[in-house]
């Protein structure tokens, strides 16, 4: 099938890259279900490490899910009206605002976290609560929600649709509910899945913002990498994979769909 030299070379590079990416994932999954990784697979397969992870870190898994859901709600409440406003009033001011919302995309999470700590670190009650981490997550994921919705809204003739509805007597709220939201749905879905995937996997910000009593899944992972035996760390990573991989696939499917619609 691949006859020319160039194609064989390309295929070799592709396969090498795939091996490089896949082998450590397989190692991690294997190590998580092997009784003793040092002795190898001959020591037997077991789920005891997964149960051990559940005993040790179930809290972190639930906290991450809770954060992802609240973060999704917050980004929807802020992001949907924001995207609608930006789409209805195109111009340099909207461009500037969009750029401003997108800043957290470009600035490393570590720098964002430092800024948040400087600003709110002295407010003890807030600093120690889970809402502090939530603020960081919302800041980081909001641009994805806004851009995802904006891309879909910008591709259609929102103004004409709304004028049509208004001439038939629809109130602004009815227009928003019955016209804007249904039309933006592919963008909302893609944005929502992106927000949840990113929130569950977020480490850079969260590591700086977390307290010993509030560990999210990735923070717990870092903790287990530093202090647990390899099997436990691997089993924990396995749990993370099981959560994140379906989310990633759903996100890619929804994003491709939203992109097709907005073209």
């Amino acid at each position, binding site marked *: 099938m691949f006859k020319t030299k160039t194609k064989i070379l390309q295929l070799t590079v592709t396969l*090498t*890259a795939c091996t490089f990416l896949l082998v450590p994932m397989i190692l991690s999954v294997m190590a998580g279900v092997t009784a003793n990784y040092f002795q190898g697979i001959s020591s037997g397969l077991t789920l005891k490490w997964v149960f051990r992870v559940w005993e040790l870190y179930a809290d972190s898994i639930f906290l991450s899910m809770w954060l992802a859901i609240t973060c999704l709600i917050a980004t929807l409440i802020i992001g949907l009206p924001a995207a609608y406003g930006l789409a209805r009033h195109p111009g340099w001011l909207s461009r500037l605002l969009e750029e401003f919302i997108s800043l957290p995309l470009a600035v490393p999470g570590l720098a964002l976290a430092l800024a948040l700590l400087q600003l709110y670190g002295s407010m003890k009650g807030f600093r120690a609560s889970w809402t502090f981490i939530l603020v960081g997550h919302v800041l980081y994921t909001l641009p994805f929600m806004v851009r995802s919705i904006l891309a879909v809204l910008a591709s259609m003739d929102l103004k004409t649709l709304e004028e049509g509805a208004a001439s038939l007597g629809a109130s602004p709220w009815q227009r928003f509910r019955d016209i804007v939201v249904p039309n933006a749905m592919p963008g909302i879905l893609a944005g929502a899945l992106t927000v949840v995937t990113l929130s569950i996997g977020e480490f850079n910000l969260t590591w700086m913002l977390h307290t010993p009593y509030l560990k999210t899944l990735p923070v717990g992972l870092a903790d287990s990498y530093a202090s647990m035996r390899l099997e436990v760390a691997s089993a924990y990573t396995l749990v993370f994979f099981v959560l994140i991989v379906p989310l990633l696939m759903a996100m890619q499917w929804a994003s491709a769909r939203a992109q097709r619609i907005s073209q």
Partner: protein
Amino acid sequence: MVSGESEAGWAIYLDILRKPRYLNTLVLTVLVSLATTVAALAISTTAGMFLSRNRFKGRGILLSIMTLPLAFPGVVIGFLIILLGGRQGLVNQITPGHVVFAYSVVGLFLGYLYFSIPRVLLTVMAAAEKLDPELEEAARTLGASPYRVVVNVILPGLMPSLVAAGAIAFATAMGAFGTAFTLATNIDVIPMVIYTEFTLSANIAMAAALSIVLGIVTWALLLIARSLSGTTVAAGG
């Protein structure tokens, strides 16, 4: 703004260039990031062109494998590199002698590469889909060698996307904290120095100054990337 309020005032930014510790860190971070960018571009452009120009059995699986790491935080990638090159790692087990590279610059480079390959691949593939294959065929019928086709037809067509993807890879590597956190226990790269200045030395002014420099650099790079390709990829890691 905190960076300007310490005793050193705004001169703290000069300290980054004057003090060897910070300057060496800066140079090392830039070098590792550059190496990552070049390697990721070479690998992902080759693979991306191949995957977008050929339809074959298993293509979907290869593509899934190569985009899967998009959802992995830097810490997880660091751990995966430890499984490859750590003390109990695969390489150390299957090769004679003691081969541990996870905690060296090589490990860090591989971690950043792991992070960058999927991101560059997606940017390149999006651009390759828009590239007209007839141009390549025309060049071939005119007698151009495969090498000439790549250099004179494909690369110029992909160039804006390659610059964009390169800027994304570079900016991500510069700011990658999670990977460095697990691997760079003995290596000073900027995110690690910011972290230790802040938590261990309580040198908040320096941490803030370094973050601002880092933030401006990555922001400017991603602005270039976006104006050239219109893609949005998070600078996490």
